[in-house]
């Protein structure tokens, strides 16, 4: 068995890395679970358009020609969507880059316009009114929504992910000695700490493979740039760029005419039989050179992005190029690399895996929540026999962490729900991206402030009821909104969430009244003494 001093050392390491990374990881996991359904969230929150229905694919060329005739700037860069829905409402869209202060186009800031054909064959266009709800949830997952540059947030989240990995290994080492004895046992009853510990261990050990994968893939997502740079110097003699290059014969035949969209479609389908095209993006440079990027899905293969694979198509032959990022192509190492991406994104095995990841992600958030609760419990000052429990003053650290845990965890849930409920209106009135951040952070800051004003016990149930209300707003929005899209999976999940939060609120309220008075979870618990006195 593992020596007692080693277990003790890892137990202390586990507490510390857990406490540093726990709250950031709660946000990352709660929002990460939701990104499993980012496409549904995007459709749910999309603005309403008055565009005519997308014309059939057969009329795509007509749509392209007429749109470019009317809007010549569209020629430079446009996309044909094979799949259309509420979030992608048009067959054709084009984008105009926004030029930043440095004179270069700003990434992700393109202005997008949609084009369709009415019954008389006239072009109807509409500027995009983008919903940023899905993007903000993704940003919260990637970097807690922090307004830092890419480098700073990568370093921050990378460090959090390293701590997370250390927490997993140390937690497992701590658990091993008692594993056989206590697994499957959740000791409900008087000893609350025991119950939290059992729940924490059960969640941790059963989702351990999931967590290990998440931790080390997240480290790669954060640190791949410095790793490549160092590998380039140490392993590849600075020649890494050459190893990436593919042998290409990109000669344009004389007098060649680019293929039509329908011809491209059939040639792509010949080369990749089960591949479903989502979109073709055309870029026409000034020298007349056309490049086409294809995105799409092959249900038989795992893909490396949450929305499928991508590659390039030769505009004159329809030949697929740069296929190593398309599902089902590439060298023998390619499936492994794609598998690593897919293991983080849950893009294998279809809907069941998405749901499994959603639940594992929420359970992960629960793991960090219970971890913090255990830390608070370990700081608890218990009344000894013959001592009046109401005389005991709790530690400052336990009190503060209890407040932070309630404020951040419940605030995140409330903030995301409020964001979703309001996102339809924000999108429809074409609100700028920053407004979405305001909504989320308003709820989060409110909950944290509330926890510090009211104390952990009272704030525990009050913020939970607030989160239940915010979550209930999602199906309520569907009922009263002018965008009648009907009840779907988002409303059902939100309703389940609402009832779960109400139930938790009721439990927390009972606890605030019935918990032992020498616990921070009792509403009349003494304010913390300053740390000197606590040290006795």
């Amino acid at each position, binding site marked *: 068995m593992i020596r007692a001093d*080693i277990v003790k050392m890892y137990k202390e390491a586990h507490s510390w890395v857990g406490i540093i990374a726990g709250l950031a990881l709660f946000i990352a996991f709660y929002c990460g679970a939701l990104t499993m359904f980012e496409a549904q969230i995007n459709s749910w929150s999309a603005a309403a358009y008055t565009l005519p229905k997308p014309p059939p694919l057969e009329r795509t060329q007509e749509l392209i020609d007429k749109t470019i005739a009317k809007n010549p700037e569209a020629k430079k860069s446009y996309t044909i969507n094979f799949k259309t829905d509420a979030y992608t409402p048009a067959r054709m869209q084009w984008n105009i880059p926004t030029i930043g202060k440095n004179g270069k186009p700003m990434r992700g800031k393109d202005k997008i316009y949609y084009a369709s054909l009415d019954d008389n064959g006239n072009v109807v266009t509409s500027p995009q009114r983008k919903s940023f709800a899905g993007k903000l949830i993704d940003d919260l997952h990637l970097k807690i929504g922090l307004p830092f540059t890419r480098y700073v947030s990568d370093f921050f989240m990378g460090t959090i992910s390293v701590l997370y990995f250390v927490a997993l290994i140390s937690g497992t080492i701590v658990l091993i000695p008692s594993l056989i004895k206590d697994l499957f046992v959740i000791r409900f009853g008087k000893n609350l700490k025991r119950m939290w510990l059992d729940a924490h261990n059960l969640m941790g050990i059963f989702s351990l493979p999931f967590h290990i994968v998440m931790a080390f893939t997240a480290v790669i997502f954060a640190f791949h740039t410095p790793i490549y740079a160092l*590998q380039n110097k140490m392993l590849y003699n600075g020649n890494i760029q050459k190893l990436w290059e*593919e042998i290409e014969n990109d000669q344009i035949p004389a007098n060649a005419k680019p293929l039509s969209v329908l011809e491209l479609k059939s040639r792509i389908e010949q080369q990749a039989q089960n591949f479903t095209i989502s979109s073709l993006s055309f870029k026409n440079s000034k020298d007349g050179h056309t490049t086409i990027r294809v995105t799409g899905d092959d249900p038989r293969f795992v893909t490396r992005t949450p929305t499928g694979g991508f590659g390039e198509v030769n505009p004159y032959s329809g030949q697929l190029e740069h296929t190593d990022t398309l599902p089902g192509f590439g060298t023998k190492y390619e499936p492994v*690399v794609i598998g690593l991406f897919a293991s983080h994104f849950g893009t294998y095995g279809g809907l069941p895996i998405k749901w499994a990841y959603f639940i594992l992600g929420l359970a992960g958030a629960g793991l960090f929540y219970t971890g913090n609760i255990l830390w608070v419990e370990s700081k608890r000052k218990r009344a000894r026999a013959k001592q009046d429990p109401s005389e005991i003053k709790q530690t400052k650290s336990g009190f503060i962490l209890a407040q932070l845990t309630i404020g951040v965890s419940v605030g995140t849930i409330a903030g995301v729900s409020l964001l979703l409920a309001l996102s339809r209106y924000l999108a429809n009135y074409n609100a700028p991206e920053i407004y979405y951040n305001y909504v989320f952070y308003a709820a989060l800051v409110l909950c944290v402030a509330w926890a510090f004003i009211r104390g952990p016990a009272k704030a525990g149930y009050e913020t939970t009821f607030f989160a239940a209300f915010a979550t209930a707003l999602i199906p309520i929005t569907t009922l009263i909104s002018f965008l009648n899209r009907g009840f779907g999976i988002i409303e059902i999940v939100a309703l389940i969430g609402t009832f779960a939060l109400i139930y938790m609120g009721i439990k927390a309220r009972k606890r605030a009244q019935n918990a032992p008075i020498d616990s921070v979870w009792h509403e009349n618990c003494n304010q913390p003494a300053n740390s000197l006195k606590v040290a006795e």
Partner: protein
Amino acid sequence: MSSETKPFKYSSKNWFPKISAATILGFFLAIIISGIFAKYTGAGISNDGAKVQLTMWLVAPVWLLIISFAFLFKNGVQAWLYLFIANIAAILLFVIK
């Protein structure tokens, strides 16, 4: 003499020198180990974008395991010394062929 008879006990107190050694030297070690993988498997270091990626991915688990188990060094000096020796050994293995 009495300190020698006392058995060694691990403590989380001296974590900093151990973990800093693992973070820095462990990172270099992980890079070199990934290089050994790249050089001695399949067609070696070659024009294969996927293998370049996989080689990069390999760094994370190796580095993270080194950090996680660096607590098991008895002290900081030992951590820096052993990881330094491991780096030298790995570099030799990488350049030998």
